[in-house]
Each structure stands twice: as C-alpha cells, then as structure tokens.
C-alpha cells in the first residue's frame, strides 16, 4: 500500500509525505521537505554584529522573536556583555508572549479543526464563532504584549542589543496587566477545549531535550540542556551532542543525539515533561488534574502540553508585569556594546523547542561565522521514527483515517518547515 500526501497543509512551510507499506511492514517512509532556501548562515557572514538579531528574526514569521533573542544572547555572549535583571525580565516577557501567541496560532488555527471535524478554522468559524473569537482575543493579547515591548508583533524593532533603547511606560504596563487579568476566563476555556479532545493512542519511548535553568521553567535563560533520560550537556558543547546529517529527501538536515545515537524530541512536551515542577501554579494544577491523561510518551499530547504552557505563559506574564509595576524590577538603560573579537553559542526555548544560534565576530565587528539549528530540524528524524512505529498499528483503519491520523501527528509537532530549511535547497544526484 502506498500513502502519498502531496502537500501537507496547515503546517508552516512546504512538505509532503510518502509511505510505502508491504505486507504490514513499512518499507519506505519519507517526510519530504522542499522548502525554498534562504542561506542565512551564508549571507550573514560579513554583516555587522548589530544586525545579527535583526536579520535572524527574518528566519521565521511565527517565532521571529525567538530567533531575535537567541541571536542577541549569542552575540552578547561573544562580546562578553552581561545583561541586567530588568532587561532579562523584559526579554522573558517577550518569550512568554511569543510562546503563547505561537501555541494559540497552532492549537486553534492549525490543529483544532482536525479534531472538531472541519477543514480549517475559517470553516469552523460558522459553527464555533465563540471559540474562534476567543482564539483571536488570546492571539491579539499576546501580540499586543509583543508590540508593547518590541514595537510590533513580528520582526520587532532591532533596538535591544545590550538592552532596550526604548521601554514601555508604567501606564502601558498597568493597562496590559489589566487586560491579562481579564483574560483568565478565556485561558480556562482554551484549556478545557484542548483537554476535551480525544487524541489517538500511541506511545513510543524517546528522549526529550530542553533548556534548563535551576529554579525556573526555562524559556529564555539557561546555558544547559537537560534530557528526560538524565544526561545533560552545556549549550557551548551543542556541536558535539547534536549530530546533523543531510538526507536525500529533505532540504532540512536531520539531527540525532550523539550520546544515544538516536533521534530525540524537543518542544512543549519535552519542556513540560522535564520542568513540570517549575510551571506556574495554575499550569501545575492543570497538569495534576489531568493525571494519567497526560501521557508523556504520546507525541499527540504535545498539543495539550502547548495548552498548559499557554496557561503558564499568561500567569508568568502577569507576574513579571506586577514586579515591574511594584518597582521590584527596574527598566534598565542599554549597555553600550563595542565590537571585539569573540565567539558565542546560545540556546533558548522557541515555541517549537530548543533553538541554537552561534556566531563568531572579528575585531571590526563583522560576523565571520553563523550557525543556526532550529527545533523543527531536530524533530524531523523523530517524526519519521514515530510514524514508522505508528503506521503498522493503524493499517486496519480506512485509508482516510490513516491519512488523518498521520496528518494529526505531523501537526502535533507543530513543524515549522520554513524555519528548518532557512539554510538549504538541494537536489541529490
């Protein structure tokens, strides 16, 4: 039997799926990625260090701020700049808002329709107008927080090297806090909806990786990567741990973890599995209430992990806003950053998982080396491995159901193909 999904829809980027099954065995399974390339790592060489984050932002239109902040973190590390608490807190605010924005976009606009029996959110809006309005409200709020700090909801003003050159006023923070508080009900209903969806039963043992920082649910801060299988490594050593390889059917590289020799997963599910204890009170409560329903090894549960993270994000956003308003956190003046020779690798948790940026800068402040590893590139191999394990279990289903089950799985990872292939476009001989 051959299964061919020519054009994966409701994912960000261009991909297709080919599966060939002979006598109940998967002979061939390829997640084909044919996204056009943009060669960031190549054309960023020779640019000025101040431009790194601004340009990196353009790798992705959904998580632009993740690329922006990860690049900033790497460049600042390369130049030995220490960022004060207040600036870090503003950056965390951005990370939290972007995580919420991206998850809401994915959950409501790309994933929900599959479970509710619609072809798209546009079709859903006829029968479920309240849910759609809720999605739009939550998205607008997240985007407005991004605009408040960064200037606009995507590709923000590149003014944050060493600290933000313009910061929100107290009135803006107070107004925003009020809006965040008013949204509690929406957040609750969002969680209810995604808790109520029945996901396919499927489990496969795999290693989850995520950024770690003691005492926090690490999204922006952290210099170490922790693993659900116990071994951790320093972000600085990422190149020894993540082995990237080129596969013929994909314009995005695949990754394996050198210690295990196997594929691994990153993203909301990995984070929640690893850092459950550091979730905000309401998010922790949500996951405790779910109990057994939260199957840590079921990749479809990633959607639910995203919903839980949305709860966490809004609660943490309130928390940071309150700390600024009370004066506990202070808006800091930007530190002047002077060019010098240096090298820095950094990682943050983008909505889809750990994102690595790495730059070398010369004495004139020109970038001489750039490397980016995106979450989706890390997840690709695991997506194929999961499907290889899943397909034999669902062969009895009608063909349409098989296709939908696979599409749901692919969408559960929330792949960002245009991110993953920001660097290459290849054809093999």
């Amino acid at each position, binding site marked *: 039997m051959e299964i061919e999904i020519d054009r994966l829809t409701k994912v960000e980027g261009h991909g297709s799926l080919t599966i060939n099954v002979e006598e109940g065995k998967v002979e061939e399974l390829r997640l084909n990625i044919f996204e056009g390339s943009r060669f960031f790592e*190549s054309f960023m060489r020779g640019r000025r260090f101040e431009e790194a984050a601004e340009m990196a932002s353009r790798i992705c239109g959904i998580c632009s701020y993740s690329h922006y902040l990860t690049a900033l973190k790497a460049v600042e590390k390369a130049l030995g700049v220490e960022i004060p608490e207040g600036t870090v807190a503003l950056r965390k605010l951005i990370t939290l808002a972007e995580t919420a924005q991206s998850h809401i976009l994915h959950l409501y606009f790309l994933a929900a329709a599959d479970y509710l029996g619609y072809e798209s959110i546009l079709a859903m809006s006829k029968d479920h107008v309240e849910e759609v309005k809720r999605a739009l409200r939550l998205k607008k709020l997240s985007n407005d927080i991004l605009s408040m700090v960064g200037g606009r909801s995507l590709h923000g003003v590149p003014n944050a090297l060493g600290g933000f050159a313009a910061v929100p006023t107290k009135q803006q923070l107070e107004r925003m806090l009020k809006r965040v508080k008013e949204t509690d009900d929406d957040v609750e209903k969002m969680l209810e909806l995604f808790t109520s969806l029945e996901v396919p039963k499927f489990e496969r043992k795999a290693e989850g990786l995520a950024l770690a920082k003691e005492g926090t649910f690490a999204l922006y801060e952290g210099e170490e990567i922790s693993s659900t299988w116990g071994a951790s490594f320093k972000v600085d050593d990422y190149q020894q741990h993540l082995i990237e390889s080129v596969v013929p059917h994909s314009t995005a590289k695949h990754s394996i973890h050198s210690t295990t020799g196997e594929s691994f997963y990153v993203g909301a599910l990995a984070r929640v599995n690893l850092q459950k204890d550091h979730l905000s009170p309401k998010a922790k409560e949500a996951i405790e209430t779910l109990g057994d329903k939260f199957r840590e090894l079921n990749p479809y549960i990633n959607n639910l992990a995203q919903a839980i993270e949305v709860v966490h994000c809004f609660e943490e956003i309130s928390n940071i806003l309150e700390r600024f308003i009370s004066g506990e956190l202070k808006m800091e003046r930007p530190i002047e950053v002077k060019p010098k020779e240096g090298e820095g690798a950094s990682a943050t948790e983008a909505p889809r998982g750990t994102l690595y940026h790495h730059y070398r800068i010369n004495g004139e402040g020109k970038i001489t080396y750039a490397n980016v590893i995106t979450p989706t590139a890390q997840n690709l191999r695991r997506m194929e491995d999961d499907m290889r394990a899943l397909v034999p279990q669902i062969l009895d289903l009608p063909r349409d159901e098989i296709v939908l089950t696979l599409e749901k799985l692919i969408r559960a990872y929330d792949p960002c193909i245009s991110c993953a292939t920001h660097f290459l476009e290849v054809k093999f001989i």
Partner: protein
Amino acid sequence: MKLKTAIIGLTGCFGCQVQFLNLEDELLDLLEVLDIVHFPLAKEENSDGPFDLALIEGSVSTSEQVKEVKEMREKSKKVVALGTCACFGNLQGISNFQSKEEVRRTVYGDAKLNYEAIDVAPIDRYIQVDHYVPGCPYDRGILIETLKYIALGKRPLRVDYCVCAECKLRENGCLLIEKGQPCMGPITRGGCGALCPSYNYTCEGCQGPSEDAAEVIDAYVKILKDKGISEDDILLKLRKFAPLYKPFLLKILKGSGPPKEVSKWKSR
C-alpha cells in the same frame, strides 16, 4: 459577490501570511468580503482556481516557484505582492551577491550535492503585479485599506512618502541629521509609522525603497559620507532588505566589487 481569494507563500518566513491571521479585529469581517478558497497554511481543502485575488508572499528562488507564480498569475484576476520578499527580494537577495559555489560550501562543506537554486527575485521579475504591499512585515492597516479598495473595484492608495514624513508627524528627533546615525528613513517607503525611529533606533529599510528613492539616493549617500559612515557600511545598508532594487543595485555594483556573476542578471 465575495472575492475568491488565494493566499500562498513562496520563499520567505511565512510571516506575511501569519500577519494576515494577525488581523484579529478584522478577520471575521474580512471573511464577509473574501472567500478564502486557497490558503495551504490554514486550510486542508484548497481550490485550484480560478481566483479573483491572489496574495503572494515570498520571493522566487527555485525553478518550481517560477512555474507556481506564473500559474497563479494566469488563474487570478488581481495579484498582490505581499511583503518585502515578494516586492523586493528581501534579505535572501543578498545571497545573489555571493557565488553559488561559495554558498554551497558554507552550508555543506564537501558533501556531493547537485545544487539547484536560481537567483532570488521579487515576483514581478516573472509576472505582472497589480498591487504592492511591501514591509517586513507589512503594516496591517495598509493591507486592510488595500483589500478594501480592491473589493470596491478601485485602485488602492499608494504610500508615496518616505519614513521621514511619518517620523516628523511623530515629532521624533532626527537620528540622521542630529545624531549622525545611518538611518534609512529618507529612502524608505513609509507605512510603518516610523516605527524604529520612534523606538530610538535607525530605520533599516524593511518597508522597501520609497517611490523617489532613485532621485534622492545620491544626496542620501553624500549625507552618510559627510556623517562619517564608511563606504562599506553604506553598501551593507543598501544590500539589505531591497538589494535587488535597481538604484541600490547600481550603487552596490559600483562599490566594493561583488562577484562578477552578479552583472549578468536583469533587474527591474
């Protein structure tokens, strides 16, 4: 009659399609005017056309996309180039200035690959474009205005002023004249509300060149030189969001020599 609408992405970051979904306040109203029948980012069922309107994000960078964009043109009554990639090529256009071999080696080292990518180009190198909504990302209000005019069967208003006009309205101090910073406002199309200068940062040109950029570019470059900005840094500025725009391209080509293969491409 609703306009049968297609929204597609070529090579880019998908942000301009996301920006469409970011029209949170207007999206449901827009659906009363637009019948979005093709939008693979958000829809499972996608019509093959014909369309009244196609919104195209991204630049053309593979031979398949040349075909795709031409087909979309044939099927659509109106074509809108959405965002700076589709309008001007955007950052990925910078790689046109590097040799293909060099780019390949940077990414792959010695891996044996038959590398096949074509020069990055804005979509109007291959098809006729009816309306341009540049910006990285474009301003949501300007897209709404443009769609409104198209729905009414009228020609959308054009942003024929540069960023400086909006910067003056916001009563910002001038980063270029007063502080000597290399702000691209004078040669950049308005529409963003002078966002970056209002956040105390120079305009980097993400909305693409202003309509009179060709006429003012010499004077602009002279000001930058007078302010002590190096030739190299000036060229980096031009080789950024709209590196393939002809007046910029000519300056870049005259400046510190990019690889010779650049000279063979056509530019608009």
